[in-house]
């Protein structure tokens, strides 16, 4: 992919990923967030964050499908940081609009409610990833350590899905599509790795 296309595509990703936020702000200003604005803000920010998490996890398996897709990695950090941004707004929505920034309420929520516990856990798992997203951090930590630290994203994917399922009512299956996508993305990794090893062995045998 040449530089012009890359810049163009990055601009499109920025616009696309910020659209949910801009729409929220626009609707908040117009007082058209629907009957339950608080729930709408929580839902839009949460869903955007969790789907962006899926998008970051899609980068590696897609690259493994074809060497021609290797440029995708240039979008991973951007997608991850946008995910973190939405997760932050989502957390603020809970702490502000639900708990009224009351430390007691926030603490009680985390202590008593497993879906909130899981949500906070997810946020704390992605927080160090966002904090070490700079090139400087990668150099400072060293590629190996940095990679190891960023394996936390797999755990975050699991806690995020648990958070979503525990949020909806028993019997409601709306988190199913996201769960399926994340399951495929997580399972794709060992399968693709095994495939790579098999190919490597085959080529080694030929030599």
């Amino acid at each position, binding site marked *: 992919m040449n530089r012009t296309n890359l810049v163009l595509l990055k601009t499109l990703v920025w616009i696309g990923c910020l659209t949910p936020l801009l729409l929220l702000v626009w609707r908040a200003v117009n007082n058209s*967030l629907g009957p339950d604005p*608080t729930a709408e803000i929580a839902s839009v920010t949460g869903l955007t964050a969790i789907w962006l998490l899926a998008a970051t996890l899609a980068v590696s398996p897609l690259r493994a499908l074809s060497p021609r897709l290797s440029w995708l990695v240039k979008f991973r950090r951007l997608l991850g940081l946008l995910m973190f941004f939405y997760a932050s707004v989502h957390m603020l929505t809970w702490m502000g609009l639900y708990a009224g920034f009351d430390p007691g309420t926030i603490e009680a929520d985390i202590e*008593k409610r497993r879906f909130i516990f899981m949500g906070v856990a997810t946020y704390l798992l992605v927080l160090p990833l966002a904090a070490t997203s700079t090139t400087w951090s990668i150099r400072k930590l060293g590629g190996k350590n940095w990679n190891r630290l960023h394996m936390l994203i797999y755990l975050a994917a699991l806690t995020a899905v648990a958070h979503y399922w525990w949020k909806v009512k028993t019997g409601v299956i709306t988190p199913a599509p996201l769960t399926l996508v994340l399951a495929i993305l997580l399972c794709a990794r060992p399968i693709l790795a095994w495939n790579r090893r098999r190919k490597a062995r085959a080529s080694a045998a030929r030599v």
Partner: protein
Amino acid sequence: MLLGKPSDISSSEITPRDDYFRYLSRRRFLKGMAATGAAALGADRLAQFAVPQAVHAETRLQTVKSPLTTTGEQLTSYYDITHYNNFYEFGVDKSDPAKNAGGLPTRPWTVKVEGKVAKPLTFDIDDLLKLRPLEDRVYRHRCVEAWSMVIPWVGYSLSEFIKQCNPLPSAKYVQFLSYFNPKVEKWSYEDATIYWPYSEGLRMDEAMNPLTLLTFGLYGETLPNQDGAPVRIVLPWKYGFKSAKSIVKVRFLSKQPRTTWNDQAPNEYGFYANVNPNVDHPRWSQKTERRIGQPFYAQRRTTLMFNGYSDQVAYLYKGMDLRRDF
């Protein structure tokens, strides 16, 4: 006092101006009635009615005032009451029922009465509408999900209907079963794994409490399908899921019936489900609620014990441990 003396103004007159305007403009838009001067109040409000929504075909009902109406609350708009619904047979999204409930066949409609009664009966909906004068009753409505509305319902006390059913002394509970037809309600199995038909129930003394409303309408008109047409129960001091919609069967029983959400998750939805700020839902606090239709920074308000109807209903639960029997 949350419930006042008999109010001598009709529900339309206590509707806040902008909501009343929506109410009027909707009527004008659909029925060609002129609401003089109303356009000056905010033409932007008309925009939402200019977009074709579900076809509005509700009939005006003859109503009388009621001493049991709630005063001093701003009514939730007709639009929000009819576009923010939990009616899982028509989809799990709050906006789904307004889109999907159009196919609910509300005529002909009968309500079967069976169980511990002198003899089983079948009531036609049109006879039920004429059984007693229909009253305008504004009630606060509190969902277990911690949101709330204020709704001007139309109906009469369920006790009036129960008297017609001649329940036997052995009848200790009453169960309500909702309409269920997966051909009409094809969303019922799409988004959820729930055992249908929807079932709810009350203890006999709760059912006989005058606040328990057999409900046929809202805002002075017959119920839109998504709000439980043609007949539903409304229990203002209990979480919304207790108020069964689109009722086709009423059973009088000697034992506590199985109820849908209690079956789904007994730790989250109790049989009594009285609004109680002191008993949290396992997944959220019930101390506060979000009033529907307010801006996001002004939604939060304190939840009242029995949703503010303690004076009328607290006696029903004397001596009970409401933490255990939540």
